[in-house]
């Protein structure tokens, strides 16, 4: 599904190499977690995959199925099935949440040559999905993320994911800023989307989230590379001992 080979990335503005050869394959139906200390390049990886400006790929490749992600515009990547749940979801005053969702869903459908969703079908779908995430009518009416609490913003990300039904979901520190109840709600939303045809890449600092979203594979990232890969037990090891042991072990 997602295939990253020897990916090298530097910042466009300054001569700073962030990713120094990332190799990663996420198969359909699998949940991979990436953990790692601050500054290891986890968020950069998610931004480069989704097509944010400001990064320069200096080597390697990233494919989603047959699609060469790095050659595509952000909207094309989205239409191809890539979804990034933002660490800091953006507030957009003046654009209603419903308008935003509907424009997104239909833009992707149009790009894929599919019929647009009718207003009635869309409404029915969004109401059902929102209910699961305890997103009320008021949150749907308000401008995108404006005045939302940290937890509401993250739930809104999952709502978008549920509506867009992507093939490959990247969750960038979705647990940050969440209390225990909100984390449960968000995790339930993610788990409901787990499917044999869908891959997940969960970026997190903490094992906590992985108690709720059980990963198949755990990677440790440090200094722009994946330095260790293992099963769920690797996350527990980090939780108990921190990164120091692992890092000294691979150094």
């Amino acid at each position, binding site marked *: 599904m997602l295939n990253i080979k020897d990916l090298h990335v530097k910042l466009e503005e300054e001569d700073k190499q962030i990713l120094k050869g990332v190799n990663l394959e996420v198969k359909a139906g699998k949940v991979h977690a990436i953990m790692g200390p601050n500054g290891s390049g986890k968020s950069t990886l998610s931004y480069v995959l989704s097509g944010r400006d400001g990064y320069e790929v200096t080597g390697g490749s990233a494919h989603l199925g047959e699609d060469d992600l790095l050659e595509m515009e952000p909207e094309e990547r989205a239409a191809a099935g890539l979804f990034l749940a933002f660490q800091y979801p953006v507030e957009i005053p*003046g654009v209603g949440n419903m308008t935003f969702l509907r424009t*997104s869903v239909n833009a992707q459908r149009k790009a894929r040559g599919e019929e647009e969703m009718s207003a009635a079908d869309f409404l029915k779908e969004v109401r059902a999905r929102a209910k699961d995430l305890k997103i009320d009518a008021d949150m749907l009416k308000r401008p995108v993320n404006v005045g939302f609490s940290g937890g509401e913003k993250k739930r809104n990300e999952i709502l978008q994911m549920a509506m867009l039904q992507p093939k490959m979901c990247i969750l960038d520190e979705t647990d940050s800023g969440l209390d225990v109840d909100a984390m449960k709600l968000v995790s339930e939303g993610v788990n409901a989307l787990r499917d044999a045809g869908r891959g997940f890449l969960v970026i997190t600092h903490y094992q906590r989230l992985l108690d709720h979203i059980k990963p198949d594979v755990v990677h440790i990232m440090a200094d722009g590379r994946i330095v260790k890969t293992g099963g769920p037990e690797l996350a527990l090891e980090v939780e108990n001992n921190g990164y120091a042991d692992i890092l000294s072990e691979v150094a």
Partner: protein
Amino acid sequence: MAAPAEKQNTTEVRIAALDLPKGGWSDAARTEALTRLRVMGLPERRDEYWKFTRPDALTSVDVPTAAVLGTKEAPVFSEMDALRIVFNDGVFDAEASDDLAMAHVQISRLADSSSDIHWAAGLYGQLEANGQAPVARPLATLNTAFATDGVLIQVVGQAPKPISLVYNHLNKASEAILHHVIKLDPGAKLTVLEAGPAAARLNKVMEIDVADGAAFHHVRAQGSDHERCAATHIFARLGQESVFKSFTLTANGRLTRNECVIELTGDDAIAHVAGACVGDGDFHHDDTVFVTHDALRCESRQVFKKVLRNGAVGVFQGKILVKAGAQKTDGYQISQSLLLDDDSQFLAKPELEIYADDVVCSHGSTSGAIDEEALFYLRSRGVPAPTATNLLTLAFLAEAVEEIEDENLRAALVDQLEGWLERHRS
């Protein structure tokens, strides 16, 4: 103080090219206006309030020609249930207009000088004359002297439906000088809609007297003919607990100067003026607003948003004057521009002048580009960049558009804006 010789000359040349209409009851006001015009002279670039906008195209003897857009789209507000009054290049079109009759409302035409309209005689040119201090507005004075037509509306109760003024532009060298006078008696209510480019060059004045407890709503769309020029003035006087709300949408037009002069003379009155403009290329848009607070606990709002691209220029000159004794004034003013490229310009001159000590007045002015973070967020959800840009542009304009209270009117103008953005994709 008389204008300098050179200014006097240009003014006399312009006056000589115009015919002073024989207006019957309005003759005295016209003659008086002509005298005032001769003293102040037509505007020049050197004048303080014309620093950002070249008045030449508005004052020249020859009318700068403007191609007729000839759009096939239904004009804005045509779906609304309203009493329609149509002017073609400034000439009243009786056939296309509805009967000038409605409950609680009396409508006459300025050009119809046969009857003596007492109430209008007391107002015509009066609010305009009052609005000349401290800033001269000579184009309005020229209008009072030379206006060829317009509507005179007296409202004595709640008007059952809006009056819709439709201005068609048919001739590429036409000039329209229109002057409307609207008088709302105590407790009366009226909505006036205006739509269309009116002529290659338009000079329009609207004088509105809003008596105690009356409410006046005004929504206009200035038409999208690219080359037209327009100078418009609104002069409003507000009585106690009265409400005045005016919104203007400007899309295209080579030169537009919209002046709005409001005097809050009765306690607890409310005045909101808002505007949204979108310009691409050869577009110069100037909003000049002057709000005077001269009573207790009045509220005024000025909300102006401009979207500019390809060298378009936006100007905002907005003033709140709070006179001594106008305590508990609540004044607000915001002017913002969204510059879609590096070639466009926004020039703002916000002014506050306050002589009372217990007031709340705030003003702000910003210029900015599209928010890159928001743009990426939308694109990451599959929204193509041009659609995302339009969505964010509409969002930017929303604060001004939301000043329109009526939901249907608001939707009609959002449609216009969406259409414009769709046609002007980068």
